[in-house]
């Protein structure tokens, strides 16, 4: 593929440093929120003051699984559900790397749910970005472990009968040190959360509620991407420090956002190194 040729300064994309411009246009549908999450992340990378050569981004499978391919870092597009496990290997074997997992709700919370809770329990030093669009979109709109009760999906034609996971609560109770949730509408706050999380030692989880204007929206008659953004605008509320127990998302109900958890716990790698020293192993 030939890189996009740029001649004049104004033609240079402001995020060329952090995005793979030769991969644009991306595959995401009009009205999708994943691109917004990526933009916020790219902005955060520039703000966070970290060595980009030392950042690895790992994605799983699905719409958000394609993020790794658009970000100009060491990018890994792994198998379905295993992004966190793969990232754990990078971080534990090479602690000087900064590791970001960027994937979707199905990938991280269903097929990869076990790795999500265990990475949080171990407090592996990484940022996990979970774009939650309430549905399996890449495969055409099937029910997810985050689909709100009674919402429709192609594999639950009479409405979802399974209560969804509350992702911040799951992360909090498993031991994550930083937990936040924003919608794709709240770009500035989302970017700030990314910056904070990137500079946080330990496992951070940032959930991004994103419109799926093709599948989730169509089957549930929610209009287009803009209509979904309007819904976020009218029906979201910031409550920093809210008890994560209270963050369930009902179908077309109010979405509570904010930074819910920000605490200190020794990370896996730090504790391991400390204990080697304390116990004088190999000295």
């Amino acid at each position, binding site marked *: 593929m030939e890189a996009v040729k740029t001649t004049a300064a104004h033609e240079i994309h402001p995020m060329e440093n952090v995005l793979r411009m030769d991969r644009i246009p991306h595959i995401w549908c009009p009205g999708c929120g994943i691109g917004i999450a990526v933009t916020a992340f790219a902005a955060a990378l520039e703000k966070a003051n970290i060595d980009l050569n030392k950042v*690895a981004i790992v994605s799983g499978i699905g719409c958000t699984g394609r993020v790794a*391919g658009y970000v100009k870092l060491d990018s890994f*597009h792994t198998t379905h559900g295993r992004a966190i*496990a793969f990232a754990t*290997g*990078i971080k*534990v074997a*090479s602690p000087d790397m900064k590791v970001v997992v960027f994937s979707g709700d199905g990938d991280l919370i269903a097929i990869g749910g076990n790795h999500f809770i265990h990475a949080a329990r171990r407090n592996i030093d990484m940022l996990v970005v979970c774009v939650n669009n309430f549905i399996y979109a890449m495969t055409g709109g099937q029910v997810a472990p985050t689909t709100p009760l009674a919402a429709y999906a192609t594999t639950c034609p009479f409405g979802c009968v399974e209560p969804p996971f509350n992702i911040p609560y799951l992360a909090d109770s498993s031991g994550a040190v930083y937990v936040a949730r924003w919608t794709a509408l709240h770009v500035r706050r989302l970017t700030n959360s990314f910056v904070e999380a990137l500079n946080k030692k330990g496992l951070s989880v940032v959930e991004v509620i994103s419109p799926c204007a093709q599948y989730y929206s169509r089957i549930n008659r929610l209009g287009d991407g803009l209509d979904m953004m309007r819904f976020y605008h009218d029906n979201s509320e910031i409550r920093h420090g809210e008890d994560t127990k209270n963050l369930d998302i009902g179908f077309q109900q109010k979405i509570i956002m904010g930074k819910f958890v920000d605490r200190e716990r020794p990370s896996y790698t730090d504790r391991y190194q400390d204990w080697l020293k304390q116990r004088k192993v*190999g000295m």
Partner: protein
Amino acid sequence: MNANPRDVLSGTHYIDGDVASGFGALAAGCKFIAGYPITPSTEAAEAFARVAYKGNAMFIQMEDELASVSAVVGAVWSGVKSMTITSGPGYSLMMETFGFAAMLETPMVLLNIQRGGPSTGVPTKTGQADIMQSRWGSHGDYEIIAFAPESPQELFDYTVKAFNLAERYRCPVMIMSDECVGHMTEKVVIPAADRIEIEPRRFFKGQPGQYSPFKPDDDLVPPMAKAGDGYNLYISGRAHNDQGMPYTNEEFKLRCIRRLVDKIKKNKEKIIELREENTKDAEVVVVAYGISSRVAVRGIELAREKGIKVGQLRLVTIWPFPDERIAELSQTAKAFVVPEINYGQIAFEVDRCAHGRSNVVLVPHGGAGVHNPDDICDAIEYAVKHKEPLEGVHEYKTRLERKVFEEKMRIAE
């Protein structure tokens, strides 16, 4: 390049095969093992966990086998040599990511101490029924390298070699041992570090921007890079071009897969390791691997005492398969006898390569034990007496098989 003395537990040990493999990994320069406890492979993980600090290496026990093998692939791409250890059900769980590793051309090692299956099977006893799974277990086309060691010493030696070939061909390598060898305690001599040859990772030396993660050198193997060196790698399990970018069209798919297959196939002669005894004038050649090859030695001895000209071909590498050598032997040998602890896996490969020129007699075993050498001897006798060509692979019924079957008949009556 020689091994780092820090990594090598030189000396004469009295240890089991599992432990020998753990020590072998350390000697090979392995810096990271992720695993999940599963009988009968656990001792290898424990051994590595115990000694890893000596080589500034580490062991992490993951939440399952899916996580273990995924973490290993991640660790390799962060620049270190890595391995995972498993058996039976854990091996099945690892298959998807094993194919992922093959697609990404990831140099990693997988130790499978085979146990009886399917499913939970017989966790504490031996089996050799994962042989075809090691070749075809993940979906899609790829070639692999697999070893079948027959002693704790070989588990040490071939663990080192597995790491070397993984680096040499940038592919996952399997050590397909079995419970018998894994739990067998014998003398294992670990030589001095300067006597252990280590293949270092072939890192790309050019500038960022010039690196294509899948652009091969003349030997069809691309040099590696690691995360953190400024190359902005894009590594995906999707079919990709040399730069790693995903493409779905036929031509790119063909190029991508063709090389995965060819880099092993075209280097077969360099990879394959066989041990032969008395095959030159043999009427019957016993083809065996792993623990079965050690049991076969006695069966062959008994047959030779009866005056039968019988030789042994031992598969040290089971994959790639020595098609050419089996075909050559089929020109002179009347028959092949294949004892294996399964209901026919390598026997069918032998039959494929014999092109109908020699009979192939399979001595199957249901697992949870090894062959009775008398059965192997009987099968050799049967093979030498049976002059007519047999249709396909002939299954020779062992004593145990006949006993169980006849008892069943009696109960039925």
